[in-house]
C-alpha cells in the first residue's frame, strides 16, 4: 500500500518515467532476423523470395498488391518461410534470413527492383518502394492500403516528437539527433500537401528548443508530461479543432499524423534509402533510464535484450510497447516490426495483482476516462453477459489507454471488459 501521491488525481498518478538516456545506441546486425510479411491491419505481403535464395540488404522480399514493399534488413541467405506469432497477430508468414556476406543494394537498384526508375519515380512511389507506407496514416488500427495514388486532401500535418507511452522516447531521441535534417527536408514532405498547416508536438521542456530550431515553418506545441494529456487522439482533435471520431482514421478528416521516425523515413525514402532499421526504447526494471537502441527489423526481443546484457527469463513480464498500452509477449523470440516502439520489462515481484474483486461503484474509472465512457457500468454489463446493454455506452469510443484499470482499487480487468464489448457487442446486440 503506497500512501504517497494520494492527493493527486487518480489519472495524474501514472508515474512519469525518468528522462531517456540521450542518444541512440546502434546495435550490430544479428545472425538471424525474422521478418513478418504483415503489418498490423489488413496489409499482407506476398513473398518474393524462397528458401535458399541469397538476399542483399534492402532487397525487396515481399510485396503487396498496391506496391508496398518489405525489405531484407540484413544480407544473407533465406533460411525458410514460416508462420510466426508477432506482438499483435498470429500465424503470419515470415521470412527468416541468416546473415551472410552479401553486398548491399544501392538506392538506385532498390528502385529498379521495384520497377521504378531513379530520378523519374514519383515521391509517393519511391516511398512505397522503400517500405514507407503512405505517410498520411498512422500505425495500427488506421492502417489500410486503400489510399489513392495521390495524397488525400490534408489540412493538418502533425509531426509527433514523442510517444504517448511514458517510457517510449525513441521519437524524441530521433528528433533531437536529426532536428536539422528534418527541418531541411520538411519542405519536400510538406509541399505534397501545400495547404496543410504543419504542427510539431514535443514534450513541454523541449518547446523552446524546438521553436528555435524549426522557427516559423511549423507550429510548435508543448505537451505536458501527464499521461492523460499525452494521449494522441484527444490531443490531436483538440489541436486541430476537428472532432475525429475514435472509429475513423485521421486521414478521413484531413489530418495526417506522422511520428518523427516515420517522417525521417519518408524523407530518406525520397532518396531511395529503405526503412529497415527501427528504433526501440528499452525500459523497466533493468534500465534505470529508458534506453533507445536502433536495430534491423526482424530482430527478436531476445537479441535486443541480450545486446544490453539482459536475459528476459529473469523477468516476470516482457511487454512490446509501454506499460499502459503495450502487449505482453508470450515469448521473447517475437520479432521487432515497424510499429513497435518499445520493450518494457517487469520484474517477477512487480507484476500487478489481478484480484478482480466486485466493483464498489467508486467511479474512479469513469472520472479518469479521457473518452468520458461510463466504464463502471460498461464493465459490469459485460461481466454479467449483457453485451447488448453494454453497447449503449459506446465502447467503440474507448482509446484503450488503460487509465480505468490503472486507477481501479478493486483491480478489475476493465480494459479487457471494454474491449470485449467493443469486439463482441455488435454481435450480441
Amino acid at each position, binding site marked *: 500500500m503506497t500512501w504517497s501521491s494520494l492527493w493527486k488525481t487518480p489519472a495524474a498518478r501514472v508515474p512519469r518515467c525518468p528522462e531517456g538516456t540521450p542518444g541512440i545506441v546502434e546495435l550490430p546486425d544479428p545472425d538471424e532476423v525474422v521478418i513478418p510479411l504483415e503489418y498490423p491491419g489488413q496489409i499482407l505481403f506476398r513473398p518474393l523470395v524462397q528458401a535458399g535464395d541469397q538476399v542483399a540488404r534492402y532487397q525487396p522480399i515481399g510485396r503487396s498488391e498496391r506496391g508496398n514493399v518489405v525489405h531484407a534488413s540484413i544480407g544473407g541467405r533465406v533460411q525458410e518461410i514460416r508462420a510466426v506469432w508477432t506482438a499483435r497477430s498470429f500465424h503470419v508468414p515470415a521470412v527468416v534470413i541468416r546473415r551472410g556476406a552479401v553486398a548491399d543494394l544501392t538506392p538506385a537498384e532498390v528502385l529498379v527492383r521495384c520497377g521504378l526508375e531513379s530520378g523519374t519515380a514519383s515521391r509517393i512511389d519511391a516511398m512505397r518502394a522503400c517500405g514507407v507506407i503512405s505517410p498520411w496514416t498512422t500505425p495500427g488500427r488506421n492502417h489500410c492500403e486503400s489510399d489513392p495514388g495521390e495524397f488525400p486532401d490534408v489540412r493538418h500535418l502533425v509531426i509527433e516528437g514523442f510517444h504517448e507511452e511514458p517510457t517510449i522516447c525513441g521519437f524524441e531521441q530521433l528528433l533531437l539527433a536529426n532536428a536539422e535534417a528534418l527541418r531541411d527536408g520538411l519542405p519536400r514532405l510538406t509541399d505534397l500537401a501545400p495547404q496543410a498547416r504543419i504542427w510539431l508536438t514535443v514534450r513541454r521542456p523541449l518547446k523552446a528548443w524546438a521553436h528555435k530550431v524549426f522557427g516559423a515553418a511549423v507550429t510548435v506545441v508543448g505537451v505536458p508530461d501527464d499521461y492523460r494529456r499525452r494521449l494522441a487522439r484527444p490531443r490531436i482533435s483538440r489541436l486541430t479543432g476537428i472532432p475525429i471520431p475514435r472509429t475513423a482514421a485521421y486521414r478521413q478528416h484531413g489530418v495526417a499524423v506522422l511520428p518523427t521516425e516515420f517522417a525521417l523515413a519518408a524523407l530518406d525514402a525520397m532518396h531511395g534509402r529503405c526503412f529497415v532499421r527501427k528504433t526501440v526504447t528499452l525500459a523497466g526494471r533493468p534500465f534505470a533510464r529508458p534506453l533507445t537502441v536502433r536495430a534491423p527489423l526482424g530482430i527478436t526481443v531476445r537479441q535486443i535484450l541480450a545486446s544490453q546484457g539482459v*536475459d528476459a527469463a529473469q523477468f516476470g513480464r516482457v511487454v512490446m510497447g509501454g506499460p499502459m498500452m503495450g502487449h505482453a509477449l508470450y*515469448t521473447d523470440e517475437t520479432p521487432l516490426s515497424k510499429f513497435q516502439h518499445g520493450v518494457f520489462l517487469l520484474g517477477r515481484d512487480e507484476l500487478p*495483482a489481478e484480484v478482480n474483486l466486485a466493483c464498489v461503484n467508486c467511479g474512479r474509472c469513469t472520472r479518469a476516462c479521457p473518452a468520458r465512457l461510463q466504464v463502471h457500468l460498461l464493465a459490469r454489463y459485460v461481466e454479467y453477459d449483457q453485451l447488448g446493454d453494454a453497447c449503449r455506452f459506446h465502447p467503440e469510443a474507448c482509446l484503450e489507454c488503460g487509465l480505468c484499470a490503472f486507477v481501479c482499487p478493486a483491480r478489475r480487468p476493465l480494459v479487457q471488459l471494454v474491449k470485449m464489448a467493443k469486439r463482441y457487442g455488435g454481435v450480441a446486440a
Partner: protein
Amino acid sequence: MNETPAGARLNVAEAPHWRDASSLAQMQVLWLVALSPAAIASVTLFGQSALRVIALAVGASVALDVAANRVLGAKDSATNWSSVTLGLLLALLLPVGAPWWLVVVGCFLTVVVGKKLYGGWGGYPVHPVALGYAMLAVSWPERLDRTASLVGQAWDTTMIEPVRLLKTQGAAAEAAYAKVDLLLGIQVGGIGNALVLWLLLGGFFLLLVRQISWQIPAGALAGVVLGAVVVRLAAPAMGATPLFHLLAGSTVLTGCFLLTEVTTSPVNPWPMAIYGMLGGLLLVLIRVFSTNPEEAIFAVMLANLAAPLLDRLAPRARGLEVARDA
C-alpha cells in the same frame, strides 16, 4: 516457434502493466483515519461509555461479517475492512451508553442485512449504516434518546437535542444554543454525530486524499441551505437559520460520511452535485416536518435510491461519430 514456444516462460496479461497502489482496504483505512478525530474526541468527551459502544460495534461488525461470509460465501471479504468502517459509523450515531443488545442488533442490521445480503460492498442500494440505524430508530425510538444518555454530563448548554427543541419551539430554539458550542460538539447528540468540528476535519481529509469528490458535500451544503431558506420563507415560525441546520445534529456526518459512501452515490460530477443537494434538502425537510427528527436518516436512503437515476445524466462520450453533413 508457435507450437512450442522456445525462450523464457513469461507472464502474459492485458495492459495496463502498471497499476495504481490503491486497493479496497486502502480506501477503508483512509475512511477510518478520517473518522478517527471524531472517535477520539468522543472518547475524550464521554470516556469509557463511548469507548465501550465503539469497541463493541466494531468488534461485532467484524465478527458478523466473518460469520456471514462463512455462510454466504460472498466475494466480499472482511479483509477489505468495510465492516470496520460500518461499525464505527454506526457507533458514532448511537447514543452514549447504548445497551449492548442494541449495538449488536444494529450491527447485524447494518452488516448482515444492509451489506451482506445484497452481496457485500458494492452491491447494496442504500448505505448499510443508514439502513441499520433507520431500523433501530423505527423499532426502539426511546432507546435512542440522547438527552437521557447524557444525564450526567455537566455542560453549560441546553441539554436537549437541538433538532428536538426545534420541533417543539420552532425558530425560537436557535437562541438556546451558542453557535460555537454547536461547532465544538457541546450539544446533546450521539457518540460522534454531533462533533461537528472533528467530523469536518475528517471530511477535509477525505477530500484531500481524494476518497470523496467535493461535489457531494458541496451539494449537501447547498441543499441544507436551500431547505432552511425555503422552510424559513414558507413557515417562518418553524424555520431556523441555515447555519443552525448545518451545525445541529448529524448534518455534517451525513454530508461528509453518509452521502459520500462510494457504492450508493453517483459517479459523474453533475449527478453527484444534484444528489448531494437532494440529500441535504431532504434532511432539512424531514427534520422539520416529520414527527421524529431521528428519521432524518431516511434522507440518506432516499438520496441513495435516486443515485442510479441521477447517474443517467452522464456526459456524452468523447470521440463518437458525428453526423458528417451536420
